[in-house]
């Protein structure tokens, strides 16, 4: 089974306590939101970081996507708060 690289940034990274991790790909039918729910269920820092999906933004393979986007074909998923650069 293929893997999926997940990256965390800003307070998502701080709460979970790591920059990212590789997981088993949950399958192309699963959405970003589905995966966020699965990860949040791990509790602890995961619950803290991912428990309120409306505060999260996501990118698949370096492109912003809405959280209801399916993970089909995704190689890299990034989870983070709204950006505040510049």
């Amino acid at each position: 089974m293929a893997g999926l690289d997940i990256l965390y940034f800003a307070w998502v990274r701080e709460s979970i306590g790591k920059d990212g991790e590789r997981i088993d790909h949950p399958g192309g039918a699963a959405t970003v939101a589905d995966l966020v729910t699965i990860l949040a269920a791990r509790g602890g820092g995961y619950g803290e970081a991912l428990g309120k999906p409306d505060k999260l933004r996501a990118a698949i393979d370096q492109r912003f996507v809405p959280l209801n986007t399916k993970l089909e074909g995704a190689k890299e998923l990034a989870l983070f708060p709204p950006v505040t650069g510049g």
Partner: protein
Amino acid sequence: MTISCRIGEVDFDPAAEIAALEALGGGGVATFTGIVRGDDGLVTLRLDHYPAMTQAQVDRVAAKAMERWPLLGIRIVHRVGALKPGERIVFVGTASRHRTAALESCAYLIDWLKTNAPFWKKESFADGRSAWVEPRAEDDAKAAQWEE
């Protein structure tokens, strides 16, 4: 068309960026430099960043800017890591034969960086507090005005 985009911890020299843009022979160079403000006792501003995504995005936004304005060059520098008040954080420079093209595309690119580039700021204050910066609705509105 020359595109340069550097993301990193090292400081940069606006003069060198401008010189590179002037050398393109365009006639007009517009720039914006952002500096860390020391408001409310800010001691350190720390920037988190998603490098691969920024690079992919810069290629796309430069292509968009080129469709929209007759540009000769774009130079973007964005610092990451820990910054102090008074330090430069971001630079956007554009060169064109036409001053309006240079000015408008410069504004477009800095608005884009503020709202679409994957950077996150964390502020640390003299009293020990620290907090991630919340996005401003105003910035989203600014970026939206460029949508056609």
